């Protein structure tokens, strides 16, 4: 009897404890819906566009500028971009697995981030720099904020800023055009970019035509205004982006540099064109400021976004410590998007006018 009693006391609690702790795992039974009766909320119109197709279109639009960068700076430029794209892809997969999120690497957004980051690096960038930048872009800027659609800042740009704050000497090690680096940056001839000359109050040595075509020093993707405009035009025609941000962005910079030229002895319009073509303004305006996630979605919002970023670019170039202000200007405006969107919220169709 005594033994029996003990057994009961010893065995029961364990069994009961298990059933007590377990119920968490048990969920309400799933309701199965027959396929015929699927009910979904509107919209019901379907379109061929998906995240994947849009990302691939943008990558396609970037290709001419990338090929030009490879032509001017050598195969190493292509290698840097490939390393960035590959490590972004991998970083996205690893982070999403580690955080227990659905893995969405097939939407190609990480690939685009990697390509943009690579095109924002000089061709002399060492491999580790590209990898660290990519991991920072995907892990810290994108996934820690919640992944695609939730990131406040453009991942590629934020990574570029991180890298240029962390390793400024590597990030400003620009080679002269047609140095044609193969794999090692050892034989690189350092050169001053047009922006650095402008910062020091002198016109760059390159002619306006050279700057338009891309026969100047700079990062892999930013040098050729012509091929970037070609890609940008493609995006506009395919209606991937709207004209609002690029036009107001570049327009504000043009207007301000026309009104307040910093270099004497040249025509105003000439100085203006130098400022517009120098640095990353065009790649920034068409490919980075227009990022769906980090720019406003209303028409007026986009125009405010572009004008604000343009104002900041001129301010940083004229008065700031850095020669280039495009990355900072877009990042600062990124952080204001929530406010711009709230301020430019359109009236609900059929709703009352505000001051009626």
């Amino acid at each position, binding site marked *: 009897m005594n033994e029996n*009693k003990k057994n*009961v*006391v010893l065995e*029961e*609690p364990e069994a*009961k*404890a298990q059933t*007590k*702790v377990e119920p968490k795992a048990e969920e309400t039974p799933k309701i199965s819906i027959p396929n015929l009766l699927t009910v979904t909320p509107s919209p019901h119109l379907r379109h061929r566009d998906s995240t994947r197709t849009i990302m691939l279109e943008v990558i396609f639009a970037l290709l001419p500028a990338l090929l030009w960068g490879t032509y001017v700076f050598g195969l190493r430029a292509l290698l840097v971009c490939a390393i960035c794209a590959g490590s972004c892809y991998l970083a996205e997969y690893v982070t999403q697995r580690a955080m227990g999120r659905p893995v969405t690497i097939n939407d190609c957004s990480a690939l685009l981030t990697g390509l943009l980051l690579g095109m924002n690096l000089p061709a002399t960038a060492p491999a580790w720099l590209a990898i660290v930048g990519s991991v920072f872009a995907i892990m*810290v800027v994108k996934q820690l904020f919640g992944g695609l659609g939730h990131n406040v800042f453009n991942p590629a740009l934020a990574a570029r800023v*991180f890298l240029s*704050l*962390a*390793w*400024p000497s*590597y990030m400003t090690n620009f080679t002269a055009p047609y140095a044609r680096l193969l794999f090692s940056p050892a034989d690189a001839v350092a050169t001053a970019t047009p922006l650095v000359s402008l910062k020091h109050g002198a016109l760059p040595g390159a002619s306006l035509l050279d700057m338009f075509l891309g026969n100047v020093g700079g990062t892999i993707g930013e040098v050729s205004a012509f091929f970037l405009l070609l890609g940008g035009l493609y995006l506009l025609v395919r209606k991937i982006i709207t004209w609002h941000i690029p036009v107001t962005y570049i327009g504000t910079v043009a207007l301000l540099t026309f009104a307040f030229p910093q270099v004497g002895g040249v025509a105003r319009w000439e100085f203006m064109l130098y400022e517009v073509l120098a640095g990353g303004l065009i790649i920034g305006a068409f490919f980075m400021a227009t990022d769906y996630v980090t720019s406003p979605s209303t028409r007026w919002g986009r125009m405010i976004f572009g004008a604000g970023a343009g104002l900041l670019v001129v301010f940083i170039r004229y008065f700031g410590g850095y020669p280039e202000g495009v990355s900072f200007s877009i990042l600062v405006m990124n952080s204001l998007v929530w406010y711009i969107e709230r301020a430019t919220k359109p009236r609900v169709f059929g709703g009352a006018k505000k001051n009626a």
Partner: protein
Amino acid sequence: MTLSGIAKQFRSGILDNNPVLIQLLGMCPTLATTTSVANAIGMGLAATAVLTCSNILISLLRKFIPKQVRIAVFIVIISGFVTAVELLMKAYFFELYGALGLFIPLIVVNCIILARAEAFASKNPVLPSAIDGLASGIGFTSALVVIASVRELLGNGTFLGLEVLGKNYPDAVVFILPAGAFLTLGFIVALVQMLKNKADNKKCEKEAVAEALEKAATAAGEEVQA
């Protein structure tokens, strides 16, 4: 004042209620003076000294300080000790004094010190107040040292001035800059929260299991009795 009570106070000041990593107080010195481990230790010890002394004095005077002007009185007491610490550092640790610069006089408005004075020392006797000040000060110092270690290691490749990562390590200057201070602090606070959540979950689970066992045992006992 039992020994376990003292241990509990230390545990609270250093871990459970760490002024920097849990309460997020004193952000200004935390972000500004953690560029190197040596600076962090200097700042932490200076603040600990002021915190302990001011806690003791405020606790002694707690029955004489009029409630309406208590904050002003606290600040006068704190700034007295800060002046003393500042002069001592100027005399004996001039290099550190130069490195910390403005942040030594700014200890006057360090909100950890004011918080301990207001929340603890003005309501408790001398000995617990002294221990509270010391514990919070050690918590502050250890948090600063952790943040500074990461920043100095990544930003300079050194620890306490000693070469750690080798000559070929390309210093990530961003970690010495203010941006790196925010990044490092964010990641460390996130890590602490993760560990804390894990520990809390374990505690809850243990309690749940113990409760279930007890209930089951009593139920079984009743059954057998019946």
